[in-house]
């Protein structure tokens, strides 16, 4: 199946070190378009680092050294990128803990539109409504659009962050353990959304929950101690793992 879909991201010989620590080693992988790719692996293996190097959030850290190539739509993002903010706008980020901006619900979603110069009230209202609906939050907040975003529950905040990320019209959604701070029902809501959104977006989800990976993954990248141990389609990964470490991980021998 995989060979029929387009490559969205292509990573070649990626090496990332922070300070003296060599965190990602010789990463080579491909992220298929309009699928859910799950980056799986035990805590501390470098999942977050891999995800953040894709939209260059790693630029924010001190002492980061990156070598190798990450191509988005065939263009290396570490070389000859004219506008880094353009690059970042192509990827909506959903973090481990929701981080709404210090403003009201409406403005959180409108933020991305406003900074790219859209200011017409009517247009903003329509778009905000649209994205809140996409994130399955509209019905809960339509009567309180102008209350502060932090008055929402954590699960609602995470969906707000999803809506905010979608509002910049990205091509990818990068989600770093997006459900780890949520209750089961909110987690389900986020998972269901992601499953529907994959028809329009390329989605990368970091998780260390095997069951979540089973539920949502089309494609799996299994990281262990900074290296890719196995990458393949989800069905193959779970039913027919090749590597001994993968087998041990699936048996639950470590986590």
């Amino acid at each position, binding site marked *: 199946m995989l060979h029929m879909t387009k490559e969205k991201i292509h990573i070649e010989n990626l090496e990332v070190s922070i300070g003296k620590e060599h965190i990602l080693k010789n990463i080579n992988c491909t992220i298929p378009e309009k699928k859910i790719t799950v980056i799986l692996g035990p805590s501390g293996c470098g999942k977050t680092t891999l995800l953040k190097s894709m*939209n260059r959030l790693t630029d*924010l850290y001190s002492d980061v050294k990156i070598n190798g190539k990450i191509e988005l739509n065939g263009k290396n993002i570490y070389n000859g990128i004219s506008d880094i903010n353009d690059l970042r706008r192509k990827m909506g*980020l959903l973090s481990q803990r929701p981080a709404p*901006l*210090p403003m009201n619900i409406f403005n959180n979603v409108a933020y991305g539109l406003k900074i790219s110069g859209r200011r017409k009230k009517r247009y903003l209202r329509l778009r905000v409504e649209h994205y809140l609906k996409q994130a399955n939050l509209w019905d809960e907040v339509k009567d309180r659009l102008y209350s502060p975003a932090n008055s929402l529950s954590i699960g609602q905040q995470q969906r707000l962050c999803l809506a*905010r990320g979608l509002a910049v019209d990205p091509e990818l959604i990068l989600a770093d353990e997006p459900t780890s701070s949520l209750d089961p029902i909110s987690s389900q809501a986020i998972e269901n959304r992601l499953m529907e959104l994959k028809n329009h977006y390329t989605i990368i989800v970091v998780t260390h929950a095997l069951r979540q990976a089973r539920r949502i993954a089309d494609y799996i990248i299994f990281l262990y101690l900074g290296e890719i141990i196995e990458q393949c389609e989800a069905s193959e990964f779970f039913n027919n793992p090749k590597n001994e470490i993968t087998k041990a991980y699936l048996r639950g021998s470590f986590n």
Partner: protein
Amino acid sequence: MKNSKYRKNEEKIFIMLMQASCGIILLIMGLILLTILRKGIPAFSWEILTSVPKGGFYFGGEGGILNAIIGSIYLAMGATFIALIISLPTALFLNVHLRKYRKLQNAIRLFIDILWGIPSVVYGSFAFTIMIYFGLRASLIAGILTVAVFIAPIMIRSMDETLKTVPLILYEAATSLGSTKFEISYKVFFKQCIPGMVTAILLSFGRAIGDAASVLFTTGFTDNIPKSLTQPAATLPLSIFFQLTSPIPEVRERAYAAALILTIIILLISITGRGISLRYMNNQIK
């Protein structure tokens, strides 16, 4: 393991210590306020508030300290405004643009802390030296600039302390939405920190209006209300000083009325500021 009785007593002692410390602070504040009120209210009059010194004012004659009230307000507002223009971008730059350059950040913080520690009289004399070099007279603008330089480190570091508390995930969220550093500074960091910013501005305003040493040579003193920035101006701290050192008891008493007025101005400004920061408090992300 310490036994539970020991730990309970430990807890009790520490609570008592903390209560005692709070009590002492409140007591001192109460005493100061009481002194100012007890001595200030009898000497207070409508005339003091609304007129400038007439001939012989400093020997117990008629008049008031309107010159110093207006002068101090002009001076403190001007200085706070200029300090704000310098401090806000500096503090934001330090926390947003230099976020990953820890060593540079710490060097700059150390440098500003040193500036904070320099006594205001040194700023005053430094400014005075420059004024003599260029042949300038004491004036409102010279005072405003001197005080602005003297309170800027206070404002920068107070803003810096609140900006430091902005969580990294908020920075990452704003960055990943494609914000420029400028947008992150003013649309996210600033908004998140409005209450702290207001406190920083109030603190600096308080220092500006209350300082005597930095305005002594730079602003001068006059019985008139300044009509332009190039004229000298009176200030409340100096007015208090001149009256309090007088040998005449009536004049000394009026010093307390001036102190009362100064305290009320600071109180009013603080209350307004609190009001502003409370309005923005509920948008903050914890």
